[in-house]
C-alpha cells in the first residue's frame, strides 16, 4: 500500500456514513466493499420452534420474517460459529406482534429495531415460538448482511478552465458524489448536484483523483459503521494469512 494512506469522514451518522479513503487501489476498495456486504458475520434468527401459531401466516413465512429482523451483534470472540442464542416471543391477539416483543436470553443479542411488525393477530389468535439465533456471513444468507447498499465512487477534482463564451447558453453539468475543491471536500448535494450552480459562467473540467475513493456505507443496526468497516478489513487480513499459511512449503 502506498505511503499516503488516509481516511477522512465526510458525513457521519449512527447508521450511515460517507468517508474518503486515499492511497488504496481500486481492487482493494472493491475488496473492502465486498467484505462489508458478504464477509462480516452478524447474528440472525435461523431456527424457529413454534409452540402455537394460529395466525393467518404459515410457520415458515413467520420464520423468514423473524430471520430478517436485525439483531445486535456481540463483540468479536464472544460467540463461536456454532453457538446459539435463544429468543422467545409470546403474543396473544387482538394485537400485533413486533420485533420488540422478542425476549432474548442474552443481553448482547437484542433486536436492533423494535418496531418491525411480525404478524397482525386477530381475536383469539396466538403466536408463541422459540427462536435460535446464529452467527453467520452475508454470503450464506442475506439476513446476515451487516452492510446495506455499500458503494464507493472516485473522488473528483474540479478545475476551472476559464469563462464560458459570452453568448453561449449555460448547460447544467450533473455529477454525484464528493468533489475536491482546493483541498476542501464538498458533497455535491450542497449545490444540487449541478456544477453550473457552483461555478456559474465558468468552463470546468472534472477528473478522477487517482486512488481516492468515497465510500457510502449503511448498516442494518447490527453494529456501528466503524465496527463494520474495521471488521471487514479484519476478514480480508484473516483470509490473506490463511492463504499465506496454505501455500507455505
Amino acid at each position, binding site marked *: 500500500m502506498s505511503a499516503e494512506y488516509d481516511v477522512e469522514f465526510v458525513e457521519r451518522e449512527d447508521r450511515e456514513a460517507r468517508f474518503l479513503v486515499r492511497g488504496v487501489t481500486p481492487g482493494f476498495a472493491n475488496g473492502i466493499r465486498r467484505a462489508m456486504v458478504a464477509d462480516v458475520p452478524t447474528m440472525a434468527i435461523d431456527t424457529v420452534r413454534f409452540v402455537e401459531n394460529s395466525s*393467518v401466516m404459515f410457520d415458515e413465512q413467520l420464520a423468514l420474517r423473524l430471520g*430478517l429482523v436485525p439483531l445486535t451483534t456481540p463483540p468479536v470472540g464472544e460467540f463461536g460459529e456454532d453457538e446459539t442464542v435463544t429468543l422467545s416471543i409470546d403474543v396473544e391477539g387482538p394485537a400485533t406482534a413486533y420485533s420488540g416483543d422478542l425476549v432474548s436470553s442474552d443481553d448482547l443479542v437484542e433486536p436492533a429495531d423494535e418496531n418491525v*411488525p411480525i404478524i*397482525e393477530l*386477530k381475536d383469539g389468535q396466538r403466536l408463541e415460538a422459540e427462536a435460535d439465533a446464529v452467527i453467520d456471513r452475508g454470503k450464506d444468507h442475506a439476513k446476515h*448482511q451487516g452492510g*446495506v*447498499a455499500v458503494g464507493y465512487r472516485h473522488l473528483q477534482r474540479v478545475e476551472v478552465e476559464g469563462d464560458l463564451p459570452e453568448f453561449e447558453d449555460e448547460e447544467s453539468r450533473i455529477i454525484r458524489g464528493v468533489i475536491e475543491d482546493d483541498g476542501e471536500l464538498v458533497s455535491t448535494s450542497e449545490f444540487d448536484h449541478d456544477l453550473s450552480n457552483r461555478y456559474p459562467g465558468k468552463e470546468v473540467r472534472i477528473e478522477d483523483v487517482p486512488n481516492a475513493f468515497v465510500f457510502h456505507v449503511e448498516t*442494518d443496526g447490527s453494529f456501528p459503521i466503524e465496527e463494520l468497516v474495521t471488521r471487514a478489513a479484519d476478514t480480508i487480513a484473516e483470509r490473506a494469512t490463511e492463504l499465506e499459511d496454505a501455500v507455505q512449503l
Partner: protein
Amino acid sequence: MMVPVRCFTCGNVVAEHWEEFDERANEGDEDPEKVLDELGVDRYCCRRMLVSHKDLVDVVSPYQ
C-alpha cells in the same frame, strides 16, 4: 400479506416505517413523497416496497 421486513433489492429494514406511512399517506391525505422523505426512506428500491404494499391480513382472516 404483511409488509416485507426488508427491501428486496438493498436489504434495508423498511417494515418499521410501514405503520406510520400507512396512517399518514394511505389513510390520511399527506403526500406519499413527503412522508417517505421524512421517514428517511431515500432510495427508490426501498420506497417502492412501501408505496406498492397492500395489507391482506384483514382480507384472509375470515377464512381461517
